[in-house]
């Protein structure tokens, strides 16, 4: 038999919590919520697709397999990171889920680097102008912010016990989705300036969402 705790304190709190208890509907499964978020990504991508040159996109993707791999890596990273973010926000689910987006992330980074090296090997491409690189950063951040906001709102309906981990995954998911959307309007081989600009934008998104999201989740407890 254990030590008698301060029962009066518990009883008072328990009674307070039980008074006027409202029915709640259990949240949908993490993967079902991931599908909902992916629906929002598809909607945003659809908006950008109105301005896409699918002919050029098709030619580029057909000519450069590493672009396909990079595109698929970004897409899978986004989906896996979102799924992992939703899963780790539910108490009792293993933190190992956070490793789920690592393989596609490696594919994304590897294929992007391979594409950059291929372009450098050709030797005739000029470095991208700084303004063009800035435009890429701008698009990635501007697309990622609303997607990250939606994702954080969905996640905060659960109870993330590891706010920093979950928010970082949410940032990665948003950055991956923004990179996918960018490919629709920017189907070019990656020069090193291009690659650095994309990397910087992705890091800005991941870091920003991680900091802001973790803070929002901690404040949400109050």
């Amino acid at each position, binding site marked *: *038999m*254990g*030590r*008698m*705790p*301060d*029962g009066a*304190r*518990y*009883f008072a*709190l*328990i*009674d*307070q*919590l*039980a*008074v*006027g*208890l*409202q*029915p*709640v*509907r*259990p*949240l949908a*499964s993490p993967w079902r919520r991931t599908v909902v978020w992916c629906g929002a990504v598809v909607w945003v991508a659809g908006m950008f697709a109105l301005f896409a040159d699918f002919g050029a996109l098709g030619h580029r993707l057909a000519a450069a397999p590493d672009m396909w791999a990079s595109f698929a890596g970004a897409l899978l990273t986004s989906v896996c990171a979102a799924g992992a973010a939703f899963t780790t*926000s*539910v*108490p*009792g*689910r293993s933190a190992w889920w956070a490793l789920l987006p690592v393989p596609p992330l490696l594919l994304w980074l590897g294929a992007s680097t391979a594409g950059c090296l291929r372009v450098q090997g050709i030797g005739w491409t000029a470095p991208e102008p700084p303004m063009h690189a800035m435009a890429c950063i701008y698009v990635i951040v501007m697309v990622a912010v609303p997607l990250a906001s939606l994702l954080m709102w969905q996640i905060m*309906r*659960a*109870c993330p*016990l*590891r706010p920093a981990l979950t928010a970082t995954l949410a940032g990665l998911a948003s950055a991956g989705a923004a990179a996918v959307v960018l490919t629709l309007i920017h189907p070019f081989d990656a020069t090193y300036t291009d690659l650095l600009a994309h990397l910087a934008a992705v890091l800005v998104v991941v870091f920003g969402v991680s900091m802001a999201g973790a803070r929002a989740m901690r*404040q949400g*407890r*109050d």
Partner: protein
Amino acid sequence: MSGAVAQPWSGVAWAGVVRADGGVQTRKMTEDAGFSALMAASQGGDARAYQALLRACVPVASATIRRQGVASDRVDDVVQEVLLTIHRARVTYDPARPFLPWLRAIAQRRAVDALRSYGRTSAREVADEDAYLNHPAAASGADEELGRSDQARLLAAAIATLPPGQREAVELLALRERSLEEAAGVTGRTKGALKVNLHRAIQALRERMSDGPDA
């Protein structure tokens, strides 16, 4: 069957189903299924099942928190944090999955948070023996009035340092004595959130005031 009650203080969790005739049929809640059933009923809005569940959770949470290495004199505080987290996180429980891993994850995490918070406080604050020895004795007689006004000032200052949500709950529910419905209407928060905020605020104020000069 109209609800459930529990007797959690005996070292193992007990739960009982309240029969239609008012009698209570108790059974040991050693199986996960008992917890899951109570939580499913709680999610449906059954307040008595919820009380039974929370009471049954106390010994499990307590044991988990102790295993994490939380000092005995802080276990009660962490258990309360766990109860508040259960309340906030009850939408995340999937009745098709076992309950105890869900509960233990919450208890473990809150224990880790408490240990970190204690570590940070210990690193920032040092014991000042001189200040303790030079501390004035409690006021008496005519000074009592002054002491009370000091205490009111300290309380106001302590309330001002609370996070916005907690301060709002104290001001509306405790100081202005508004009902939960009214406060929820004013703030746009749910009644549950207001209750949680008020409880946290009272706990924080109690801790801050007990460190004050008249403690």
